[in-house]
């Protein structure tokens, strides 16, 4: 829960900053102010959310207990402290913070340390369950991307701070940034999220979850694309002219598109073959995220075909981060938080006393419009970026911020069991869960 709480807080701050006009598009896309917002979203919100979710779901994916759970808290500490240092470092670059502390370097060491620990815990858990089921193979590739990503990120932080000069590694910073972004959004976050969804969507829709050929090809194609980005692109940078590794990224993008297309086929299959006719709000809201993923992929391909990707890359990244990853994250938190709260609170008394259903912990009717507002805000803001309308962007960002705040409040209410009727709320033997620290982890 602590991972999810810090993640949601980061998202709210980032959305607030965007609504206030801090960073891109009012500022330049590579300005330190933009980097503050981008990393608040990418590390604070999405990566912490992904780590917290994987610590819960990888054991479910592979039917093995989490290895070295004692490292989970250090992961949170390293990532949170590392993010704070990184942001302080960007503020130094922006001239908003005047100290001599080498914040960028500290952040550039703490963050990889945190991610390596996370990859260790999850990697060892996966390793113990070989041969891996397909969803777990997606996560394994995502973790491999995370390691390359963190290395690149640390390198970029050292370059930015001037400790390493670009000449020393014969690569220009501008060539590494697209790789860093592609591996982060496409590899670590998207690939891991797809893997988890391959197991969880059928589980909650009661769809057949046998391995499908399309899923296997989605994995193979996506992995090939990520290999191009993670391995051949750096090679191209070192051997080539030292600018942008456009060939590797184009090849990677082509493989990635095939993977996303196959993933779309599988999603449609799950939805059509579900045994549970009535879908819950988290699945409906995830539909918005899948639409955003498709839109981001089409937009990216269309812009690349017209040669306008450079100019509008911000819109693609925004749509992928907030529409797809952020939308999926928010919608699934809306399932995960009540589910874990239910287990924590009612697990000890189930079978002995009447308990509410998990759905009773949330008020879906009331919350549906908030997800609607969130996705509407994201699509308006994306359109505003494409049209070059910073004022409209701030309007869209404000809408997402309001919707996120409302959903965060609803999650707190769910955790306090506020939506459960008084008669069922706390049967004898059940305890009200603590808000941020789930006691469940200790019992698993």
């Amino acid at each position: 829960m602590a991972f999810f709480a810090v993640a949601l807080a980061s998202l709210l701050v980032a959305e607030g900053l965007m609504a206030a006009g801090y960073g891109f598009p009012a500022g330049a896309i590579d300005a330190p102010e933009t980097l503050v917002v981008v990393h608040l979203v990418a590390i604070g919100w999405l990566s912490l959310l992904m780590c917290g979710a994987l610590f819960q779901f990888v054991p479910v994916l592979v039917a093995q207990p989490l290895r070295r759970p004692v490292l989970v808290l250090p992961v949170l500490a390293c990532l949170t402290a590392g993010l704070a240092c990184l942001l302080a470092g960007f503020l130094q670059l922006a001239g908003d913070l005047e100290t001599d502390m080498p914040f960028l370097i500290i952040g550039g060491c703490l963050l990889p340390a945190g991610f390596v620990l996370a990859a260790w815990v999850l990697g060892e858990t996966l390793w113990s369950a070989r041969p891996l089921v397909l969803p777990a193979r997606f996560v394994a590739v995502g973790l491999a991307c995370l390691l390359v990503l963190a290395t690149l990120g640390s390198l970029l932080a050292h370059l930015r701070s001037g400790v390493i000069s670009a000449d020393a590694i014969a690569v220009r910073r501008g060539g590494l940034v697209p790789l860093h972004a592609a591996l982060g959004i496409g590899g670590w976050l998207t690939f891991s999220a797809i893997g988890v969804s391959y197991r969880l969507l059928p589980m909650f829709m009661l769809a057949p979850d046998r391995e499908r050929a399309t899923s296997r090809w989605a994995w193979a194609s996506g992995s090939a694309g990520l290999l191009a980005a993670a391995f051949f692109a750096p090679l191209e940078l070192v051997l080539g002219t030292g600018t942008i590794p456009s060939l590797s990224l184009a090849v990677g993008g082509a493989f990635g598109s095939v993977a996303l297309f196959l993933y779309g086929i599988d999603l449609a299959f799950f939805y059509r073959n579900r045994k549970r006719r009535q879908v819950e709000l988290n699945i409906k809201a995830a539909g918005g995220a899948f639409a955003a993923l498709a839109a981001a992929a089409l937009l990216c391909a269309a812009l690349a075909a017209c040669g306008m990707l450079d100019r509008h890359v911000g819109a693609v990244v925004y749509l992928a981060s907030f529409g797809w990853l952020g939308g999926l994250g928010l919608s699934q938190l809306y399932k995960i938080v009540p589910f874990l709260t239910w287990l924590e609170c009612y697990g000890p008394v189930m079978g002995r006393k009447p308990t509410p259903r998990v759905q009773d912990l949330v008020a879906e009717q009331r919350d549906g419009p908030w997800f609607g507002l969130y996705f509407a805000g994201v699509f308006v803001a994306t359109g505003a970026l494409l049209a070059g309308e910073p004022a409209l962007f701030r309007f869209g960002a404000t809408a997402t911020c309001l919707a996120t705040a409302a959903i965060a409040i609803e999650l707190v209410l769910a955790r306090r069991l506020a939506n459960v009727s008084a008669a069922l709320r706390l049967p004898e033997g059940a305890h009200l869960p603590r808000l941020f620290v789930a006691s469940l982890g200790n019992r698993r």
Partner: protein
Amino acid sequence: MDHPPYDLDVRPILREGGEPFSAIMEAVAALAPGQSLRLLATFKPLPLFQVLGARGFEAAAREIGNGDWEVLFTPVRPAGPQAEAPQGASGEWPEPSQRIDCRDMVPPEPMAKTMEAVEALVPGQTLEALLPREPRFLFPELEGRGHAWKGEAQPDGSYRIVIRRGGRTEAT
């Protein structure tokens, strides 16, 4: 944790073509709370990882030469103050007095239904439940309440579990 690991060498049984499963289960039942089991075998006993994993043991295997393996099974979940060991007296399981099929339920309903049915049993009676998948969240709950269980994954990905109600009526 102050007991040294219990050593069990099943290589002689295996070399004579015997079946060491019952010897292993007897050794497991005889373990003190928190005590580990060190097993020596002529192959890496993967099926056993699953069986003992379901009972809260974590396996660490290493090859010790000549194709032999040493596996240390360490209890990772607290054994709990149960009146009888969950895996004790493994030979005396009566036929299930109730069978339920939870395969078409959404989590956590399979677990809730299973627990409801278990709590309705008389101590010593058993329940057979078909679940959509291995119930990772159910095991600690069963353990905490002192119920014993045997489970196995089915070819179609579902999971069959037989639960025997423990002697106590209230968990601590």
